[in-house]
């Protein structure tokens, strides 16, 4: 792309905001009542984080990986790609993240939670609660239709926030699992920004917070 400096983020917006939110509306209608299942999965993750079961990290990682894989296929590949040619790449990225979660959390069992969580881990839990319980309601609060709700486990944004929250809450950092969710926060934030969405800064703010706290935790452990 020549003269790349003359392009603005809005030059890459291929669709109208109305089309973007209709995408969620139609998607939600198509997959209903899967949203109930994924919300329950979110609650299950929260419950498991408080349990002492040795296998909890593996179950949480596997659950998250299934969500990422589902979003890669059902959302990005099947529904987002027709209006955004970049969504094919998003699908690949989400599938890679699913494999990373399986590798880190299921195969290597690195997703563990301290029985006496640190302040940073508690912030992670709070963000997770936000992703599961509050984020789906944000659109409604901002004047969008409830049918366009973005629900944890089936919509990218709350699932990415929940993943970052879990990685923050885990007692050992997993830096290899961070780049794709962080990149998505940037991309989604830019998309919403050029659509003049009121919640455009939410994901970049969450990403910045998680990045900052992750560095702080790493520094404290050195």
């Amino acid at each position, binding site marked *: 792309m*020549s*003269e790349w400096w*003359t392009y603005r983020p*809005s*030059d890459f*917006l*291929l*669709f*109208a905001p109305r*089309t973007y939110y*209709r*995408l969620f509306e*139609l998607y939600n209608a198509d997959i209903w009542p899967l949203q109930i299942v994924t919300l329950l999965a979110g609650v299950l993750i929260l419950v498991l984080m408080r349990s002492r079961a040795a296998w909890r990290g593996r179950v949480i990682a596997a659950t998250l990986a299934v969500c990422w894989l589902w979003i890669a296929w059902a959302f990005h590949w099947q*529904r987002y790609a*027709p*209006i*955004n*040619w970049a969504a094919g790449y998003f699908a690949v990225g989400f599938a890679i993240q699913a494999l990373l979660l399986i590798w880190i959390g299921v195969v290597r069992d690195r997703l563990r939670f301290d029985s006496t969580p640190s302040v940073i881990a508690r912030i992670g839990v709070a963000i997770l609660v936000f992703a599961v319980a509050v984020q789906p309601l944000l659109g409604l609060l901002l004047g969008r239709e409830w049918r366009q709700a973005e629900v944890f486990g089936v919509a990218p944004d709350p699932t990415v926030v929940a993943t970052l929250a879990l990685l923050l809450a885990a007692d050992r950092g997993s830096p290899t699992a961070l780049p794709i969710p962080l990149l998505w926060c940037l991309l989604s934030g830019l998309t919403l920004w050029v659509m003049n969405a009121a919640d455009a800064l939410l994901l970049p703010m969450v990403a910045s917070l998680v990045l900052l706290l992750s560095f702080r935790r790493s520094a404290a452990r050195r």
Partner: protein
Amino acid sequence: MTSNIHQALRPPSAGRRRLLLALATSPFIVPLRASAQSSSLLSRPIPSSGQALPVIGLGSWITFNVGNDRVARDNCAEVMRNFFAAGGRVVDSSPMYGSSQEVIGYGLGKLRQAGPPAPVFAADKVWISAGARGPGQIETSRQHWNVPRFDLLQVHNLLSWQEHLPTLLAMKAAGELRYVGITTSEGRRHREFEQIMASQPIDFVQVSYNVLDREVEQRIFPLARERRIGVIVNRPFRQGDLIRSVARHPLPAWAAEIDCANWAQILLKFAVSHPAVTCAIPATSSVAHVRENMGAAVGRLPDEAMRRRIVAHVEKL
């Protein structure tokens, strides 16, 4: 301060012009208005062939990229129906515009089911880095549109133009394509653009032009006239920003002197009144807006003095 000598297919009388304007603004008499308007639309000849094109076309950037949403697709088909009913011909798209090509094909298919095929002047683009993959992309685009052939194919934003232009010119020579062009937007790569205009046998250029973005008047428009190249104007409303900005202000009294009933028509008439311009391609997903836009292809166009007045007025807003 107005001119009425610009290539109207059948210049209407003053009384008939008033009638047409009244019909154009009435929501209740669409078929009558449509047929009356289409018979009197302002048009411009394509310099390389003399074929007349209505000065207002239909773009599809963003507005027609609605994916598989059936309701939105039907709405776009309705926009197209109103566009053709009002006498519109030129529809422009690109492989870059997401699902827009498929949505245009859907709209044309619906129109075919309802009656005779729409008299579309199909303008599309080739937009792919590898020149060898150009023909495959063009064929995919043609299938999306579901037309026997394109009227115009343009190299989108000059991407790999050295490789695509020979392909398009060969298609034209073989009778698989009627016109060849190149595009840019928002003033990018104008120097290279001019070099291609000066050296290649192209029929069209597509550039951004509106009352506030007039850089193309300096070199590209004169070159187009000199080389007998048609000019298609994109972003006449600056992707909606310009019309949103001026719409806050009352319509100036002089709008009536150029038969404009709204700001959209003033902005469009400004764009198409430049003698180098063949047509403008505003994009919309609104039936009301496409009717408004087509109203810019009726009545008097601004002359040079009025064009200067429009610029001065809008720059002050």
